[in-house]
């Protein structure tokens, strides 16, 4: 096991060089070629191997302590490593939720014994966590959730249904929020728990998405599922606040400025080869205008993100202004993908199943609508900025102070 963080004098550029070398060496084993044609299960197994190597090398959960399998580094190390890693097509997607929100939240709320038992294997990719938030009637309006948790001796019994639960089909554990008191106002009656996804009474059903034949999103059904009270996170009735805390962590987790689509550099290369009535598309003003808009926005967002990470590294809490990044990048990927298809003309309808999502305009275009919805819709994010940053009045909410079980 290489202890990467024992050299405090390592400069950032040395850090990047070392990460580059480490990543490059793994390409034959974990790169796009190696993954081609694998089933999801095979790919997941490969992903767990890769994740274990990352944890051993200090590249998994870079900002978490070495003792539990993290990297003991800073936000800046994390962003630099992620940038390098995103140049490869390594299997990391299964752990995005697991390590993104549940693990940090467990570190804040769970007891030491639990942390020692569950977190290191989670960081190594042996265990996967899901996040049980949305429901059929509770998407943007999370506090409208209906899945009940009712007191039962030393624990609680959960009944109901969650929706849009990413990677629930592979999850060992989950964090989630449930209604423990329907007689009080909607925000007040919620409580936050972590739970074993293998508990009796849990059924997971994959939801097929618009794009692609396999999907990471699921329905999760709860039928009299027992959760001990010791797995409660925060006070009874404080679940909404804990959920918001979780979402604030999520908001800064968008590090890939291409949102999984082609980079602007790739788009420019593509446009240099595309033609509009015989002219190179990259010489055309409408393409230049679109690229310039994207480049300007990217630069602004890089600057905002870098300064926010620095502030976080200096101990400040992330603010609601983190909403900008996902809001802009998701819509931008859609604009750029649509333009790229326009430049292909009739050929643009072809969808090459062999090509990775990060390389193909059509795949990029067909996948991105979800990016404008998941993790806060465009509309919710604008509202967040308006209310939380600018201090404008909240929308009219007729159900806000009504007991939940009396809302029409």
């Amino acid at each position, binding site marked *: 096991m290489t202890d990467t963080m024992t050299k405090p004098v390592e400069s950032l550029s040395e850090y990047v060089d070392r990460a580059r070398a480490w990543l490059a060496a793994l390409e034959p084993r974990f790169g796009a070629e190696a993954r081609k044609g694998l089933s999801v299960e095979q790919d997941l197994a490969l992903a767990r191997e890769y994740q274990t190597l990352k944890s051993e090398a200090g590249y998994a959960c870079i900002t978490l302590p070495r003792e539990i399998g993290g990297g003991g580094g800073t936000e800046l190390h994390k962003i630099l490593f992620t940038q390098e890693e995103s140049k490869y097509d390594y299997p990391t997607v299964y752990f995005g939720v697991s390590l993104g929100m549940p693990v940090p939240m467990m570190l804040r709320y769970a007891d030491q014994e639990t942390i020692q038992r569950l977190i290191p294997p989670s960081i190594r990719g042996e265990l996967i966590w899901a996040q049980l938030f949305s429901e059929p009637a509770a998407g943007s309006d999370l506090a409208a959730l209906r899945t009940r948790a009712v007191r039962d001796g030393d624990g609680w019994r959960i009944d109901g249904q969650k*929706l849009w639960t990413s990677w629930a089909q592979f999850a060992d554990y989950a964090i989630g929020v449930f209604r423990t008191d329907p007689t009080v106002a909607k925000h007040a009656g919620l409580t936050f728990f972590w739970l074993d996804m293998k508990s009796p009474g849990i059924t997971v059903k994959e939801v097929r998405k618009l794009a692609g034949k396999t999907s990471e999103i699921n329905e999760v059904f709860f039928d009299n599922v027992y959760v001990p009270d010791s797995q409660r996170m925060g006070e009874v009735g404080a679940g909404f606040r804990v959920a918001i805390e979780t979402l604030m962590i999520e908001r800064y987790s968008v590090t890939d400025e291409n949102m999984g689509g082609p980079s602007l550099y790739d788009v420019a290369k593509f446009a240099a080869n595309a033609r509009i009535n015989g002219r190179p598309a990259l010489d055309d003003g409408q393409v230049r205008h679109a690229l310039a808009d994207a480049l300007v926005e990217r630069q602004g967002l890089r600057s905002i993100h870098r300064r926010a990470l620095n502030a976080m590294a200096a101990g400040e809490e992330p603010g609601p202004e983190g909403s900008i990044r996902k809001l802009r990048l998701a819509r931008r990927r859609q604009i750029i993908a649509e333009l790229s298809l326009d430049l292909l003309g009739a050929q643009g*309808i072809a969808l090459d199943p062999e090509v990775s999502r990060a390389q193909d305009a059509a795949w990029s275009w067909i996948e991105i609508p979800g990016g404008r919805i998941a993790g806060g819709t465009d*509309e919710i994010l604008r509202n967040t900025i308006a209310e939380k940053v600018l201090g404008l009045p909240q929308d009219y909410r007729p159900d806000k102070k009504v007991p939940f079980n009396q809302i029409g």
Partner: protein
Amino acid sequence: MDNDVRTMLLDQATRLLEAEVDQSRLKTLLEAPGSFDRALWEKAVELGWPAIAIPELGGGLGLDLESLTPLLQELGQRTVSLPLVSGYVTAMALLDNGVAADVVAALASGEAIAALAFGEAGDCGLMPAAKFANGKITGAKAPAAFAAVADHALVTALDGDTPGLYLVALGGAGVERDVLEVIDNARAAAGLRLAGAPATPVVTGWAAVLRTAGIAATLTAFEQVGGSERCLKISVEYAKERKVFGQPIGAFQAIKHKLADMYQEVEIGRGCAIDALESLVAGQSDFLSLACTARLGAGASYDFCARECIQTHGGIGVTWEAEPQHHYRRARSLALELGGAPFWRDLLVDGQRVLETV
């Protein structure tokens, strides 16, 4: 009389589509490349749809185009793909140029299916690289709707430096079809590899090619308008029904104004389509410019409405099971099949240089 026939045709169409087409049938078509709803097509043929606007001397019913377009709009609303536009456009190109009367008759009767294979990889526009020489075409065409099942294709190619349209029998020698996964598999799309495929010249000259593309664009615009209308309709319905924060989402201005914008796009697209059709029917000299506005207006409208229909539906909108995905796919497919928007913008703006406004 025409009005009665129109009403009858549309009634029949509505009843047929209502009875036959449901979401699960549409999903099945999306599953595999090159899908075509042959059973529905056979029923459409029985009702005489392919014949509607083809003149009687070509074996058609000889009704006016205004009898065909409401039907196209209805198909567009339901994201049903039938080769009506390609059949009409091909038949008229043949008929106007006195070529292959047997094919015209077969298209009118619905025995034969046509595809419009105008685009190629390498340029978003329609200027071909495929070569015609000695009665044969060599070159590759981008995936074209219905080419997976068509008997004939109207194909663009260069004779020397002169572009023209050619009729190619797809079952014949020198033709290979590439049935590919595409954005919208229900379009029965296939790319064509032509290696000395026998081809009958139909018409030559860029102007004639553009006019034919303009007719196809104008008729397609009605499918696009239908699709946009439907996106608006289901978005408005969902917005009235779905509640967040104690109110229907349609009570929030972010959604209200999004839907108001969709309405404007629908009406502007519709206006462009109507005006292009009128100009075509009246044989006006501004037809190509109006066809460009129909192409761009109805295409942008459908893209916008489909995209924001998903957004209005939230999470449900990005599932396989929900309706919006059909429109999202269809909108983009229709916007690309006859060449990308930058090509049509060039055509419009260059045409405007010599057009006085009024």
